[in-house]
């Protein structure tokens, strides 16, 4: 692999141990994946924030790297934490967890990372352009950036994304190269897609079937998917499979202007979403918490939740998770007040995966996100229901899943 003089200097330690370690990571990945060179990145999204997932291991490492002088040199945004960084005490987060979480945030802040705490940086100020090279972690954000924005990133891990932010570079392999962005799986969807949870269930199914083939969707339903639908679809495929890029014919940028379908592509047909719903929906009747906002809710999703509530009072908890940026706009627009009036919460910064759910007394969760349902099941051990926004909100008003 070719390294420039400046890159070689970083590797030799001339810019200090923090930059050297970062360049060792970037260069090693380049060698492993046979890149010819490194490319500058326009922005970075760093995952590995919630203390519940990072643990002492991650916190130790971040503190050491920051202490060695690691500083980011490109705009760098941060994934969700395990709690709302302002309202955590009133939401029932235990003191010790909260303090450790704040130490993680401090380490990132010391490195110059923006404390954006969202899995939807593209809705909160970090929006890369078409064709730009970026180094993002957080699989749902990677999927959105590649597919909907046409930017170029591999699925980075937390440390490798941070290494790219510190060096300003990433190795040019995988999805940075045009030839690897061509689809090999045509997905003909003949059933109607009527809600976000439909797109989420579809994504769950296709992610499991795709293996290493990049999907190209043809949607027969008349409704053209917008940003929220594509976000739900991509997040689901990135959770149930390893899909980091997809195309939707006539919709996503590379499938509008370029020929992104391989000649030897195979084809599958999706006639029903039952398989997706059945795989994720459990049997729990009681619902402690309804969770909307995986990935983090857009302004429209917060509004739709308030509309669906329509002033009804809640019996169980209802949390809409979002970025602090979107929260402040939603406050101004009044949708937050409408949710709060029903005794619901709009929670900033946080993801439930990595949050101390058991300590908070939460044992059953309903959500309209297949990604959320999937990780709640595998990572937290709570009981899970998966359904539409209407079903979820209905469950929150009764404390029971609708029969």
């Amino acid at each position, binding site marked *: 692999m070719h390294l420039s003089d400046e890159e070689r200097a970083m590797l030799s330690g001339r810019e200090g141990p923090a930059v050297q370690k970062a360049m060792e990571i970037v260069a*090693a990945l380049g060698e*492993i994946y046979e890149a010819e060179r490194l490319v500058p990145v326009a922005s970075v999204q760093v995952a590995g924030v919630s203390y519940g997932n990072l643990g002492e291991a991650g916190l130790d*490492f971040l503190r050491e790297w920051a202490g060695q002088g690691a500083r980011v040199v490109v705009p760098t945004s941060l994934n969700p934490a395990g709690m709302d960084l302002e309202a955590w005490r009133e939401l029932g987060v235990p003191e010790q967890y909260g303090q450790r979480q704040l130490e993680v945030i401090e380490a990132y802040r010391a490195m110059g990372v923006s404390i954006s705490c969202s899995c939807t940086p593209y809705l909160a100020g970090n929006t890369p352009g078409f064709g730009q090279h970026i180094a993002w*972690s957080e699989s749902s954000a990677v999927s959105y950036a590649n597919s909907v924005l046409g930017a170029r990133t591999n699925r*980075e891990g937390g440390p490798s994304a941070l290494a790219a932010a510190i060096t300003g570079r990433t190795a040019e392999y995988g999805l940075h190269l045009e030839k690897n962005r061509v689809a090999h799986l045509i997905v003909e969807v003949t059933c109607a897609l009527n809600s976000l949870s439909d797109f989420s269930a579809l994504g769950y199914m296709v992610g499991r079937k795709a293996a290493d083939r990049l999907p190209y969707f043809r949607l027969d339903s008349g409704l053209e998917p917008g940003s929220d639908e594509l976000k739900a679809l991509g997040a689901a495929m990135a959770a149930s499979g390893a899909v980091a890029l997809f195309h939707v014919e006539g919709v996503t940028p590379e499938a509008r202007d370029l020929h992104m379908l391989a000649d030897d592509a195979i084809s599958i047909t999706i006639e029903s979403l039952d398989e997706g719903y059945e795989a994720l929906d459990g049997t729990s009747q009681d619902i402690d918490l309804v969770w909307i906002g995986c990935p983090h809710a857009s302004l429209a999703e917060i509004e739709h939740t308030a509309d669906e509530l329509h002033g009804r009072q809640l019996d169980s908890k209802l949390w809409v998770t979002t970025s602090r940026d979107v929260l402040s706009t939603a406050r101004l627009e009044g949708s937050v007040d409408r949710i709060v009036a029903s005794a619901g919460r709009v929670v900033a910064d946080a993801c439930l995966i990595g949050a101390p759910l058991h300590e908070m007394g939460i044992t059953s969760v309903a959500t309209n996100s297949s990604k959320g349902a999937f990780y709640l099941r595998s990572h937290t051990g709570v009981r899970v229901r998966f359904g539409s926004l209407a079903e979820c909100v209905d469950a929150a008003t009764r404390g029971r899943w609708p029969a």
Partner: protein
Amino acid sequence: MARMKLRGRVIRRGHAEGEALVSQQAMSFFGGVDPESGVIVEAGHELEGEFISGKILVFPQGKGSTLGSYTLYRLRRNDLAPAAIINAQSEAIVAVGAIIADIPMVDRLDISQIRTGDEVTIEDDLVEVNRLDSPA
């Protein structure tokens, strides 16, 4: 005593010596290895219950969450890291973990040549395998 020399590709330079612990299954460090004890805890893994600390850990490649890189770092901080890692084909999770935890690592060699219990010495890309009692 059988002696064998293999040459791989360096992921992390360094010198290490130790007893080989070999698996033919991919390994997840996040959730798969307990960083406080150095024991493999992945249910159903063929090395479940084995202690990896100080061993030359040999497996085809990593899998699972990218947080596994931090697990390797934590093992190092707890003085419980493997002495070295040998993979058939490296991927990002274990490679990044080896770099941030300063664990010598080599890939792209025939790992079927190495058996659990072999005495292994690594010097950058050179792997020397000593088998004390060759079975008939």
